[in-house]
């Protein structure tokens, strides 16, 4: 039971408290770039969640069964980025072959995910935080869901911004970042609530 509780804590804290986009600033590029429309935002969020889970599934054993025993820890960055890049490519090929419908839906986001720092960030953070295999998977799931949540919420805000008259110099990126700042502020409040609940 104790183990289950700690998993819930990890999940909740990675979705709400340490939200990757809004509190840790990882994966800002897709967050700002692909959040214009709700369906795109959701598609990107789901793809990122899937890739995060897969990446953790592969990188955690690599770290603990190959890099650590042979004292190759310093190769972590190179190995992880290569693994993630090839994983994404493979996923794209497999999806194309076996599920063209899904590929049409999510395929366009896959190449962009290779260089999404949130994915590499999750893989590295799971190692530095000393999570075991199950905890790592739960934390990746949480980070992915947190990313999805932030994307979906923000796409709603963006559609409202589109309808308003923005001062000329703030149009585009500037107003988007300021709006993101307000969303981040809301999440900060949420984080306090969760912290108090968990204690």
């Amino acid at each position, binding site marked *: 039971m104790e183990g289950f509780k700690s998993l819930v804590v990890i999940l909740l804290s990675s979705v709400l408290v340490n939200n990757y986009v809004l509190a840790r600033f990882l994966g800002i590029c897709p967050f700002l770039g692909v959040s214009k429309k709700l369906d795109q935002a959701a598609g990107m969020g789901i793809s990122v969640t899937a890739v995060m889970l897969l990446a953790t599934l592969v990188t955690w054993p690599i770290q603990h069964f190959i890099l650590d025993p042979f004292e190759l820890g310093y190769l972590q960055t190179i190995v992880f980025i290569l693994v993630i890049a090839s994983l994404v490519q493979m996923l794209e090929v497999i999806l194309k072959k076996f599920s063209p419908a899904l590929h049409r839906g999510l395929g366009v986001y896959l190449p*962009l995910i290779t260089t999404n720092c949130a994915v590499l960030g999750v893989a590295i953070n799971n190692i530095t935080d000393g999570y075991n295999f199950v905890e790592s998977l739960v934390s990746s799931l949480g980070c992915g869901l947190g990313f999805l949540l932030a994307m979906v919420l923000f796409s709603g805000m963006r559609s409202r911004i589109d309808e308003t008259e923005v001062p000329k110099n*703030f149009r585009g990126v*500037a*107003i988007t970042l300021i709006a993101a700042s307000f969303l981040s502020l809301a999440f900060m409040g949420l984080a306090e609530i969760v912290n108090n609940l968990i204690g």
Partner: protein
Amino acid sequence: MKKDGNLSVLLNGIIKENPTLVLILGTCPTLATTTNVFGAFGMGVATLAVLICSNILISLLRRVIPDNVRIPCYIVIIAGFVTIVQMLVHAFIPDLYDMLGVYLALIVVNCIILGRAEMFAGKNSVGRSALDGLGMGIGFTLALCSMAAIREVFGAASFAGIAIPALENYKIEFLVKAPGGMLVYGLLIALVGIITAGKAPKKKSFSCAGCPGAHICGSSDCAKGKEEA
């Protein structure tokens, strides 16, 4: 395309095509490491070092690397240099290493570096690529430092860790938290937009040119977004 002089290659990165404030590349480290000037400067210099080295090597190898596997090659080269920088920082400036944490490793996926490799180093001579890397790196460092200065002075009443007693009672702690970072960044982009009005290249959108995925996702929403912009 008109060939710019060497000096303007260097200066482009600092002002006109500032990677952070005009091209809007490398947003993640910009927001994450600017809570104090020391961390921001360290991040800027680390990125500068990786940028120059990778630009030079990629430019040297530009005729050797086959076109269709160039992105993986670039990533391996960049990851190699990032690892070297990581080890050097860990050995000589452990404080900075602890402060930057995961963001140091994440220089690998910093779109400025891949973007410059793709846009400049893959097409230009070694000397010009080194200059471009230097200019872009300095531009990145300056942007990071100015943002960090605003956030640290007004948010934490200190500068590079040295306390400023006069502001002690007027801290706006919001600025050093996550939302404050986005707010200051947004305001700075708007400010630079006013200053460079008309002079800067029209890249106020999230530039596809700098996105390493651009060549793959040519038909996707990314391209659509580019047309709209």
